[in-house]
């Protein structure tokens, strides 16, 4: 399953669900402090297995760490790793690729997600079965989806067979071993994996529109396109904002399709920032360099998280 894996859900956030002043709130107020204890197990687990590793990552980023010194003393080297990444051109190139990759995934993922939701809002057997099929494909492990697309996009794979036989191309397209095609192909498969989730969320937003609005529009003689443009698009705006950020994050942190389909290649063509950090650490065994690249991705995530928090707040105040 490849989720943007972030909940867009907050059904209980309606003010009505909060205890009102007329209720005996004093008991709840006092007892709620006891409920902080419920957070303890998560705090311990994440402290040991997420926060502490992040601190180690930052330490490694500023140290000389190879596979030989991984469990020994690390020499502090300051910004040498970061500088090495920039001077060699690896980091800036990966940054550009990441931006292109995220742009393609976001455009296809949200655009086709919305198109799918609009087409699938109709009731009927076809819509129901197709929605189930899409959610199933979304639930499959990324290795399975990545494998089959690697097969379909090969030189003698189905896509090229169709392209050559219909005369659209004289020769098979080098989907996975041309540097530009490869980045585009992996970005397409990433979008493919996220479209069902986005379509599902958009569909829920569309089903929530009052039927009376459509009835009124029908009486006024609105066309289908006008319905989409003037009723559906405004109605899904708040959802779009959240999904946009989630899809950007999903594209940004993605590595599984790259791993399966191209392993960063051909050459360095599909080395996005997260994958570059992984290769530097686990293939070149330079853990210091890999950590410094990963710290750059962590900083990117912090920026995106701030944008996400803002868009959530705006969505909540916008209703």
């Amino acid at each position: 399953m490849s989720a943007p894996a972030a909940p867009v859900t907050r059904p209980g956030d309606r003010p009505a669900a909060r205890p009102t002043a007329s209720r005996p709130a004093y008991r709840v107020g006092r007892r709620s402090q006891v409920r902080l204890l419920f957070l303890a197990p998560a705090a311990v687990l994440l402290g040991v297995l997420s926060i502490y590793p992040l601190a180690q990552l930052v330490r490694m980023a500023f140290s000389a760490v190879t596979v030989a010194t991984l469990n020994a003393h690390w020499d502090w080297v300051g910004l040498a790793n970061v500088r090495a990444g920039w001077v060699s051109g690896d980091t800036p190139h990966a940054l550009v690729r990441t931006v292109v990759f995220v742009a393609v995934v976001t455009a296809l993922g949200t655009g086709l997600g919305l198109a799918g939701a609009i087409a699938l809002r109709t009731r009927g057997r076809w819509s129901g079965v197709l929605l189930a099929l899409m959610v199933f494909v979304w639930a499959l492990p990324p290795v399975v989806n990545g494998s089959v697309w690697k097969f379909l996009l090969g030189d003698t794979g189905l896509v090229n067979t169709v392209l050559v036989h219909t005369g659209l191309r004289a020769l098979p397209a080098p989907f996975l071993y041309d540097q530009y095609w490869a980045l585009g192909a992996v970005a397409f498969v990433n979008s493919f994996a996220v479209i069902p989730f986005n379509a599902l969320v958009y569909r829920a937003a569309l089903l929530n529109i009052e039927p009376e609005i459509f009835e009124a529009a029908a009486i006024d003689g609105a066309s289908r396109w006008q319905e989409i443009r003037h009723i559906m698009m405004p109605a899904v705006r708040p959802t779009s904002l959240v999904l946009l950020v989630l899809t950007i994050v999903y594209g940004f942190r993605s590595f599984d399709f790259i791993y399966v389909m191209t392993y960063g290649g051909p050459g360095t063509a599909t080395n996005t920032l997260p994958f570059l950090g992984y290769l530097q650490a686990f293939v070149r065994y330079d853990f210091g360099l890999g950590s410094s690249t990963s710290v750059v991705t962590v900083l990117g995530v912090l920026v995106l998280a701030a944008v996400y928090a803002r868009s959530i707040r705006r969505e909540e105040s916008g209703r």
Partner: protein
Amino acid sequence: MNLKAGPVAIAVKALFTAMYGVPILWIVLTSFKRSQDVFGTQSSLLFHPTLQAYQDAIDGALFTAMGQSATIALGTTVLVLLVAIPAGYGLARTTGWLPSFGLGLLIVLQMMPQTANVIPLFQIFGRWHLLDETFGVVLADAALLVPFATLLLRPFFRAVPPQMEEAGAIDGAGVFRTFWSLVLPVARNGVFTVGTLVFLLAWGEFLYAVNFFLAPAHYPLSALLASQVSAFGINWPGLMALAVLTSIPILVVFTATYRLLRDGLTVGAVK
């Protein structure tokens, strides 16, 4: 809403049917082919189905990998739920700077690229003798999925009317009893939804498995598949047979929980 599909909607549906139907069809068809029948148009739909790929794939090593997948996915689900259920409830019912900070932290953590976690965890697990241990992979997967699970559970607990808990308090039940016997049963749909999603994610996770297990003999199915597909000279029918075998448990879970997933994933997206 105009519920009749227009020509554009039909075209979009046809496109999506092809886009999502063909890959599934191709996985299954290819898994029943012989290696020499894989490429070429003549044989893509008309061929002599054979179980060769499955016979080759199914051996002792495969059952070991299946066992590993099941252990990791179930172990991760149990551990994540044990930690995330109380955390989701706690965050739903407390106010102040601490829960707000925790919430922000969870959002940041669940956005972290996994490739940034795998580097320090490899070093830390090496020191703690957790490399090459299934338990180590379960711990890493749990840490990866707890933020997601907690954030998704919180709104389900917020939707439980607080009056119910007040009633429990008046009857003299403590905070923990109220939670266990009143709140949890009401929020069970959320728990099932989140449990299913965590299982699916843990079943497909392969980056930790590939790096923390030092020998392929301990790999779960997802890691086996990942290491075979990135190798040279791929035996496609064998690979697709492995993909089908990896996906069968997903199909079972999906069939059992589709409605829950379809509605649970989006429950509050628009409310």
